[in-house]
């Protein structure tokens, strides 16, 4: 449904998105996962034709965004809940959007009712809480009854009740057979809502797979081994049919526990400098996978803490 090929965006010297190709299947919830600053929002803006790609292209149902006639009827999006004039009422905000795509005005009250904002429809949007703004944003996305929905970090900053509401809403949209593409930096959140995952880091594709595959891969227990005879060790382990991934001066071994690795090393007379089992939560594993591609390392620990708390 959404097809990105070689999508690239450069801002001056910064490469925000680099040769990104992925596809979003119709009628499913696809998560768009990556750490903060990975290029998720930039990609979403390019899908909507707001930012012009430096290279490559992205299409929705085979068409570029600006080729869509009355695009709100095909693609609904919530990129930022605060993209509303603070002195305009919620209803007026939806009214001009409806008018622009020849959507009947009655639809405005319908979507306000769907998100539960009927009572405050005449109030100025600037006075809304984040949760209410988010609901207004979702109402705007649903206005044209679109087949495709894009949400950028919809649960960011919401209280637990709001998060639950959004999560249920995503499921409902998917049950209605809509294509939902939703970004997040929280794997735990995505594991609950998305059936497919597009994972990016530093603007590059890390993986595209079903959520199940990604989670089982991410949650896999591995063992980190350091040795001065790394090449020999790798061969020995591979002969024993263990999964081996090379890291800087170390091997990350999967499908084999540390006892067995130590025995193999001993029988091959290989010196080990480190042999440490890596058991981690989903989030830690996710960070391991995207770790090299985190743009801003500062505050990562704090974020991990936050992530773990919100996962509880």
């Amino acid at each position, binding site marked *: 449904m959404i097809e990105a090929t070689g999508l690239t965006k450069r801002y001056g010297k910064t490469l925000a998105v680099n040769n990104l190709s992925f596809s979003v299947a119709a009628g499913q919830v696809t998560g768009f996962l990556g750490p903060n600053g990975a290029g998720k929002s930039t990609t979403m*803006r390019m899908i*909507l*034709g*707001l*930012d*012009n790609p430096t290279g490559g292209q992205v299409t929705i149902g085979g068409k570029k*965004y*600006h080729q*869509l006639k009355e*695009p*709100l009827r095909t693609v609904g*999006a919530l*990129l*930022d809940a*605060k*993209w*509303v*004039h*603070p*002195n*305009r*009422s919620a209803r*007026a*905000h939806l*009214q*001009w*959007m409806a*008018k*622009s*795509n*020849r959507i009947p005005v009655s639809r405005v009250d319908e979507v306000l009712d769907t998100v539960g904002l009927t009572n405050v429809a005449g109030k100025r949007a600037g006075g809304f809480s984040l949760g209410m703004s988010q609901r207004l944003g979702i109402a*705007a996305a649903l206005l044209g009854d679109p087949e495709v929905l894009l949400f950028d970090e919809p649960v960011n900053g919401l209280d637990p009740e709001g998060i639950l509401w959004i999560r249920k809403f995503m499921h409902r949209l998917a049950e209605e057979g809509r294509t939902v593409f939703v970004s997040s930096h929280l794997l735990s959140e995505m594991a609950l809502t998305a059936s497919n995952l597009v994972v990016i880091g530093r603007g590059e594709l890390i993986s595209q797979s079903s959520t199940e595959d990604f989670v089982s891969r991410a949650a896999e227990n591995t063992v980190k081994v350091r040795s001065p005879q790394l090449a020999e060790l790798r061969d020995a382990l591979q002969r024993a049919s263990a999964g081996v991934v090379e890291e800087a001066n170390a091997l990350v071994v999967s499908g084999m526990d540390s006892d067995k690795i130590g025995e193999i090393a001993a029988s091959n007379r290989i010196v080990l400098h480190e042999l440490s089992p890596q058991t981690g939560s989903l989030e830690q594993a996710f960070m391991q996978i995207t770790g090299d591609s985190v743009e801003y390392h500062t505050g990562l620990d704090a974020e991990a803490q936050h992530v773990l708390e919100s996962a509880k």
Partner: protein
Amino acid sequence: MNLLAVERIKLFSTRSPWWCALITLALTIGFAAIIAGATPADAQLTLPATQFGGSQFGIAVVMVLAALAVTTEYRFNTIRTTFQAVPHRSPALVAKAIVVALVALVIGEIAAFGALGLGMLMRPNDDLGLHTAQDWMNVAGLGPVFALSAVLAVALGILIRHSAGAIALLLIYYLAVEELVQLIPKVGAHIHEWLPFNVANKFLRGSAVVDGPPPSDSPLSPGWALAYFAGIAIVFLLVALGVAKKRDA
């Protein structure tokens, strides 16, 4: 037509256009009242004198209104929502320019005829009739000049995107730069002849010497003066559309 309706809803669902319109009317009509009140009983209140408020001050407030109509969209990112709903940016922005210009036109006509009417009420014995074509242009012409100034301000708003920056530039240019250019030795006066607001004044007031600010030194006829002013507004708008099309929203 649909896009015009969109921009109309947007413009009138916020408060600043109403305030700007009220201030413009108050300035224009209020200034006429002050001048009418201050004219000695044995002197004549002239028709151009009732219109100073509009052509000198009202226009500045109308440009603030027009610039804000665009810059607030950038400030609150509703421009992105707009381009999302209408991916072809030029029609969306042209619709905005048209709606703002129409509003400015209406404000201008109400202000000009309001000022004239108040002058007539306060000085029933003075000759304030619309006798010549120039008299008509002086009063009814305020609307078109407001409308074109609004287009110019919309274009500048699109280019600059920041409310404070766009308004500061517009007001400093309008209130100071055109006058100060004349101080440049030798060429200053020639440049001044072709500066847009000076030319617009030629359309409004012709070259008749009346009390108040000196008449425009533009060599154009009043009709051509309006065409020239319109041309400048349209060129600015076209440049702005070109920039908006290429730029990331």
